[in-house]
């Protein structure tokens, strides 16, 4: 490995989606020498295939499609002269010391090793597939994840089927339901395990627009069809998500789309011992999105699954600011860290540690929907009223440094009914 051509940078950004591009742009603006690596043939991550509107309302104050959002960042990246490589696959990260790290990657022009002071890991997430959600049966053609279907239809222009069943009512599943319906396919059902829909309100509208039946508290358990999917078996579940015997029925379909949630991609991080939060599936991070390995930062869906790209870009920029601070001070010069703890009806929460030296956006998801609630941080006496909270909609709220400074040990976040 030592004879590989050697490159030298202040920060290597892994991943060219919205988190990675935002991180690379910000790092360059802060005067750092940046290299961005992405394994796809083009920049943007999944954005170029997300052709629907709804991106950038917070960040650009206007509504863009995914490719348009990506193009704005890609343009800025090129204007600033950020070094980037596409079709570049990162093989390994090595952590020699706080300011000496190596990223090994392969690319069409060969393999390289990059010595770098910091790394921003923004590799996004992967989709959960049929086997992970307990679907058994035949393995005929016609089973895709929602993201695969999106790549095939909206990048490569391939129509995948005529009669569609979608597993999961999250945003990607609903958006693909609309794509199939618009292209003339019959979307026969959206099957949701939970008793409430998983997507944003504006995407639930899609079901009404196209008269698509939504089965709440149901699951797909079996798929049949030797050559190609022919029918899928569905069963009702009780409040503990246990199948109710005698409620089985079949729907005829030639295509099954799995939209069962995303899981942060963290393989390269776990290989070097970065601590992972089992609830988010992403790394444990502080208020600069630094992981438990000093100088390795993370951002976007590889940390926590976001529902708005705007938050992903925001996290990328913050990680870049972290990298700059780290390089200037040979580490993050913080005296004490305050742990942010999950209380009642909080399922996910980042960042995990707060310095109290800066204001911080916290991102959280609730476990169950509730109306008329108060979000409380009892240790610092902060309270916020909200008319409604839903698991599908991430809560983002600011804690000011003066507020954080009031905490002696930890700060708990809880969402309680009024």
């Amino acid at each position, binding site marked *: 490995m030592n004879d590989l051509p050697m490159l030298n940078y202040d920060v290597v950004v892994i991943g060219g989606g919205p988190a990675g591009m935002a991180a690379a742009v910000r790092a360059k603006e802060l005067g750092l020498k940046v290299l961005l690596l992405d394994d796809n043939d083009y920049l943007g991550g999944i954005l170029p295939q997300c052709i629907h509107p709804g991106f950038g309302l917070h960040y650009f104050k206007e509504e863009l499609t995914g*490719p348009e959002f990506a193009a704005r960042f890609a343009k800025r990246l090129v204007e600033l002269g950020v070094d980037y490589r596409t079709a570049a696959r990162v093989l390994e990260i090595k952590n020699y010391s706080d300011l000496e790290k190596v990223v090994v990657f392969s690319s069409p022009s060969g393999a390289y090793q990059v010595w770098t002071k910091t790394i921003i890991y923004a590799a996004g997430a992967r989709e959960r597939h049929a086997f992970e959600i307990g679907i058994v049966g035949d393995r005929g053609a016609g089973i895709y994840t929602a993201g695969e279907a999106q790549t095939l239809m*909206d990048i*490569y*222009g391939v129509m995948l089927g005529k009669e569609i069943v979608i597993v999961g009512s999250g945003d990607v599943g609903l958006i693909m339901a609309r794509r199939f319906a618009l292209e003339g396919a019959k979307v026969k059902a959206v099957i949701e395990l939970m008793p409430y829909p998983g997507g944003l309100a504006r995407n639930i509208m899609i079901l009404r627009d196209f008269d698509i039946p939504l089965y709440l508290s149901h699951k797909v358990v079996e798929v049949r069809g030797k050559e190609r999917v022919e029918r899928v078996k569905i069963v009702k579940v009780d409040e503990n998500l246990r199948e109710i015997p005698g409620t089985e029925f079949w729907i005829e379909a030639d295509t099954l789309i799995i939209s069962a949630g995303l899981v942060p991609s963290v393989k390269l991080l776990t290989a070097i011992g970065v601590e992972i939060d089992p609830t988010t599936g992403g790394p444990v991070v502080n208020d600069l999105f630094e992981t438990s390995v000093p100088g390795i930062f993370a951002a976007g869906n590889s940390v926590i699954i976001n529902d708005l790209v705007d938050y992903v870009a925001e996290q990328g920029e913050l990680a870049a600011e972290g990298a700059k601070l780290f390089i200037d001070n040979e580490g993050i010069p913080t005296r004490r860290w305050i742990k942010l703890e999950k209380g009642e009806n909080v399922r996910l929460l980042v960042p995990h540690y707060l310095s109290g030296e800066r204001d911080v956006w916290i991102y959280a998801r609730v476990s169950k929907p509730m109306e008329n609630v108060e979000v409380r941080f009892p240790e610092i006496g902060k309270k916020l009223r909200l008319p409604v909270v839903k698991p599908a909609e991430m809560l983002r709220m600011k804690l000011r440094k003066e507020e954080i400074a009031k905490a002696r040990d930890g700060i708990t976040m809880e969402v309680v009914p009024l």
Partner: protein
Amino acid sequence: MKKTYRFTCIVCPLGCALEVEVENGKIGEIKGYTCPRGKEWAIEEVTNPKRVVMSVIKVRNGALPTVSVKTAEPVPKEKIPELMEFLSKLEVEAPVEISQVIAEWEGVKIVATRGA
């Protein structure tokens, strides 16, 4: 004949549960909204629902085989299948710039949202 429409407001993330009564083509009582924008949207949604439409069309000699497009403004919901039929027949030659107007359909511009 009286008909009650029930849907979720999508103007902002609150997602209010709206109810609009329509009697003989006239809007009656509107319930569930918490702001004037929501009320306005509810009326439009039952009288003349519109959507921005997005799709992909074929592109020759581009880096990818398709280019993504959207309508420059929302179009009436009932005309969407007709528009999709129109889009399915379009084919353009690369290069295509992002924001380029690719075609026009009933006065509505079809705009490229990716380069190709």
